[in-house]
């Protein structure tokens, strides 16, 4: 079973950050405070959509046929994800300042 990576705090809904990474081979642990990469800040559904977009060489028509949706439905979803990525980029940019 593949566990879903939590990206929001279950208590206050704030975006989580990475505080510990470990090596599965030798159990070396690295601690710190790292932001989640932008891709991981998206929902699982949005990540899957982007993955499909790449695997289909960016062809929305092929994606629409595969997903059983119409072309404008798929294009709207892509536009919504682009809008969300821009929002996250702006928010992350402000947090860095």
């Amino acid at each position, binding site marked *: 079973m593949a566990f879903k990576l939590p990206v929001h705090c279950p208590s206050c809904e704030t975006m989580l950050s990475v505080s510990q990474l470990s090596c599965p081979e030798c159990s070396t642990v690295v601690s710190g405070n790292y932001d989640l990469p932008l891709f991981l800040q998206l929902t699982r559904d949005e990540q899957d959509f982007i993955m499909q977009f790449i695997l289909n060489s960016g062809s929305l028509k092929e994606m629409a046929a595969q997903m059983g949706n119409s072309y*404008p439905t798929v294009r709207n979803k892509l536009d919504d994800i682009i809008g969300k990525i821009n929002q996250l980029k702006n928010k992350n940019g402000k947090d860095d300042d």
Partner: protein
Amino acid sequence: MERMMTNPFVRYSEKKLLFTGLFATIIGSVLAAHFYTRYDGVLDAHTVSELKYYMPFLDNVINVFCLSLVLYGIGKYINRKTRGVDILTVVLISRIPLYIFPLFQIGGYLDEITKKLLPAAGNAFELNITGIEMIFLLVFALVYFAALALFIVLLRYGFAVASNVKSVKHWVLFAFGILVAEILSKLIFLTLN
């Protein structure tokens, strides 16, 4: 099933929708020509006593053209990625419920009741129609308003998909667009008649 009925635009490709829409428009025009019905406006349907066979076809071409043109303009303003073919399929599919109107003309029953009603126009106490005729009129009115409502619902869902509409301002523009298309089509019909 419910989603397929109210929002086929999410699921089906533009080719399927375009073919279905064109086919339905031709069938609707044939029915209208056969049962003396004219669609003389984007939101209008009337029975007439005289009709040339090509008229309902021309009516539907004008209505589809006006509505598509206005909604395409608004769609482009809202979202520059709006495609003409998506708007055209939305208009063609949305109009399908309106093609039920000529079916009420089968047997000329509706026309007979209308002729009985005309002398009593303006005076509800002098209506000279039977109870069954009254029920027929009531059923006709209910079905026609339901068809008109379904037309608007389909248009609304289809336009949302075609132009990725989300804000209230855009929906106000959409409603305004339907009125503009109605006026434009009426102007064209007035010029042609």
